[in-house]
């Protein structure tokens, strides 16, 4: 590569990094600012950092000017909601999706590709077209504001992803290996547990992490089908916006907290995340 091209690509990468990392960086800074510093103009990059926003969000501690008092905070509960929902939704997606993926990868049956495409089409459809119907359904069936209700509605995102990802991974395992295990005396279930699943381990782990992140980051569906009880973290951030004011510092602290699981998990499975993100847009 010529020297000029190298310089050009380096500049381009720096610009892209600033473009993508600046909002995150600014959010971290905002979480450490006092209300005065938040509203300061011109915006302050150098300021005296405080932990008040974090103490408020995590421990419900508010500085009155002379002392800290305890106030109510729901953020740890919303964090646990998100964790519970993401774990549960991922588990359900794999319990349902893995057998479906195996069938699509290994068997021929009538309407196979139509079924697969229909499942995929759930990813194309915007959440807006289903939220009204789902809201009414959930109100009538008692699923509104329940953790299971959110796990179930997240299957619209996760199940197509899991089925399509695992289908291609399963298809990549040579079928002769499974046949050899059958000849070696293993039943279908034995082949699946002793041969297929071990070979799928890396793919399972990566897909599970990506599915978890999708569920964690999801906003619209989680907002529509929950109330104060089962609300996940991402829609809960709206609670920092009221008619009188916006608690920017606390919202920033809560948002940074909400980002952490996705960032940490993504670091573990970086190269698989790229493949997963190109599969469909990340919502939330």
């Amino acid at each position, binding site marked *: 590569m010529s020297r000029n091209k190298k310089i050009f690509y380096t500049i381009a990468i720096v610009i892209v990094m600033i473009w993508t990392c600046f909002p995150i960086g600014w959010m971290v800074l905002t979480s450490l600012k006092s209300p005065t510093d938040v509203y300061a103009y011109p915006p302050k990059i150098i300021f005296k950092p405080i932990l008040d926003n974090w103490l408020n969000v995590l421990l419900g501690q508010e500085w009155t000017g002379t002392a800290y008092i305890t106030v109510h905070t729901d953020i740890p509960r919303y964090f646990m909601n998100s964790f519970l929902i993401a774990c549960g939704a991922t588990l359900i997606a794999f319990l349902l999706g893995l057998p479906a993926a195996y069938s699509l990868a290994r068997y021929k049956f009538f309407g196979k590709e139509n079924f697969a495409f229909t499942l995929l089409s759930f990813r194309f459809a915007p959440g807006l077209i289903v939220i009204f119907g789902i809201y009414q359904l959930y109100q009538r069936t008692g699923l509104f504001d329940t953790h299971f209700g959110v796990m179930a509605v997240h299957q619209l995102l996760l199940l197509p992803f899991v089925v399509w990802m695992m289908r291609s991974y399963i298809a990549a395992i*040579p079928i*002769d*290996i499974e*046949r*050899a*295990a*059958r*000849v*070696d*005396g*293993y*039943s279908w279930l*034995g082949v699946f547990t002793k*041969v297929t699943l*071990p*070979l799928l381990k890396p793919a399972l782990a990566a897909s599970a992490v990506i599915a978890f992140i999708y569920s964690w980051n999801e906003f619209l569906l989680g907002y529509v089908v929950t109330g104060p009880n089962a609300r996940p973290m991402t829609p809960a951030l709206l609670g920092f916006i009221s008619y009188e004011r916006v608690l920017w510092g606390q919202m920033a602290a809560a948002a940074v907290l909400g980002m952490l699981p996705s960032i940490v998990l993504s670091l573990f499975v970086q190269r698989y995340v790229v493949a997963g993100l190109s599969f469909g847009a990340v919502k939330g």
Partner: protein
Amino acid sequence: MAYLEIRNLTKEYGKVKALDGFTLEVEYNELVVILGQPGAGKTTLLMTLAGLEPVTQGEIILDDEDIIDKPTELRDIAMVFETYALYPHLTVWENITFSFYSYRAKRAGLSKEKITERVKRITEMLEISDLLKRYPRELSGGQMQRVSLARALVRSPKLLLLDEPIAHLDAKLRHRLRPELRRLQKQTGVATLYTTTDYMEAFGIADKILVLHQGLRLQMGTKEDIWNKPAHRIIGNLLGVPSMNIIPGGRPKIMNGKMNIFTEDGLQIPVDKEQQTRIQEKSIEKIDIGIHPSDINLVGAGEYKGVLRGEIYVYEPLGIKGALSVKVNKQIIRVQTPARYEQRKVGEKIDLYFKETDTHLFDSKSGLNILFIR
């Protein structure tokens, strides 16, 4: 009753018949090679025997037991796949002993000492004792093939199926492994079915050869039977390098009490008595003539009374032998020559000599050898 009997086996994939009324008998300790071109149905046959593919119709009797409805894992059949199909996440030792840890095998309760003893014996026989801790990705093609074989043999199965096991190895290794495979089969005494597209492999190791074409059994016999009396024109194409010369569309005529076959482009091929009787009995009108390149001589003497006159087209050295192509009227006839053949010029006139008894006559319409027409 034979040890393995396959009766009227038919396997259909939609409208396509991969096996059509197939029959076969294999005795205990026999090595039968299924020879056929790609797509003949060889792998389908092994898959149906192993229970990996359902059968449309037919019976499979193994050791006096009908196994057609038995699931794969209960048939006591071992298989070596063309792709070896080793378990990539297991070591060589774990691959070989994998069958001993299935639910059924655990119930049978073979002790760890017995398993170790069996594995030791088989791996020493196959010379892979020093590879036991490696993973398949660390093995060469020949090593993978032997591990695959060890995995099959260690179970002492009732039937061993080998699906082109050395197809993907280089020529030298294939040549070396062929006699080893035969020796192993005789040492273990297990009834074996072996599939291949290579006639030399078949001739090298088989007790009997079965030629399969488009799901149909064309012929079964020893290598001498197949070579000296191929039952179908297609078999001629499978045998020999170069393969059998087939001169198409000849019409038999009797002149002075002797029958000759006259081809459209003016060749005259003499016919022996047995074939003449047959042609007359069955009123065969159009005949394709087959001659092995190795049965054609460049010197006329003794029984070599048949003559084809032509001109040299091209000479190909093939290592330990050569192939001389001669243009006889419009036909190209190929002749096998010794390695040190003194090459003559292209276009030079040459006579080809053959024995009447070395010609194989096939009915043009059906392709059947006239001696096999009922």
